[in-house]
């Protein structure tokens, strides 16, 4: 065995795949689901406030596309999440992520 082969063998032993903690899967799926919920909620509020004005009737169509994508992304992932008990508190990073994405979505909807 050459030195290079020996190093490669050691690298295979050393860099084994690392299983993500169960809590991360829960947190991630919750984060993505909250993102979905935020998009749907945002869309609903916006639609209610604007649909009375015919000048805005073209805009919900675009919003539906944006919201629809966000709302649908994790249907299958959520099925797993719903089997588990929801934890009461979210972590700061998650909240920040969701806020950022929701903020971005809000900007797009208001254009």
């Amino acid at each position, binding site marked *: 065995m050459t030195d290079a082969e020996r190093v490669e063998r*050691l690298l295979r032993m050393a860099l084994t*795949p690392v299983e993500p903690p169960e809590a991360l899967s829960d947190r991630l799926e919750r*984060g993505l689901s909250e993102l979905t919920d935020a998009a749907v909620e945002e869309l609903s509020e916006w639609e209610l406030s604007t649909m009375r004005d015919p000048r805005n009737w073209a805009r919900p169509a675009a919003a539906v596309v944006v919201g629809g994508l966000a709302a649908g992304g994790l249907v*299958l992932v959520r099925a797993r999440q719903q089997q588990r008990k929801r934890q009461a508190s979210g972590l700061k990073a998650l909240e920040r992520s969701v806020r950022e994405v929701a903020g971005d979505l809000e900007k797009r909807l208001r254009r």
Partner: protein
Amino acid sequence: MEQLQDKQRLDRDFAELYRAHLRDVYSYAYYRIGNHHDAEDLTEQTFLQAYRHFERAQRESNGRPLRPWLIRIAHNLAANYYRDRSRRPITQLEDAAILSAPHATEDMVEGREEVKEVLAGVSKLPDDRREALIMRFALDMDNREIARAMGRSEGATKVLIHRAIKQLEEGLSDD
């Protein structure tokens, strides 16, 4: 109706991507950053960002696998992580690698010191070399995938990996 079908297909594809590559992204993040806490944050950010851009990525992928794209997102976020916080990995890689390795033979016990030395060597490599090795050995990516993830040519990637292994080899023989 057609839009709905497209969306349902997109949903399925994203869920599949998530399930297929959660471990890849987490492994990459862990070996790149060196601690579980930040690896979790990085993994989370990677999937949230992927979610936002998935439709476009899928459209532009022309049917190619999306794992390199996903790892590239993690790669960019990791770069921001270091830039923002002026940090280098505080490597405790031996915790993950040795504890998670399903080996228990005497040979493996004897090899632990060597594994530790290699891990220490990996943590001292320049970022691009370290990343290439993580992708190759922890994620089992081939040169083409690594090249796409790192935004390099396949030739340059092959050279990069060769040099990384050579550097490790020299480091081990010095010890």
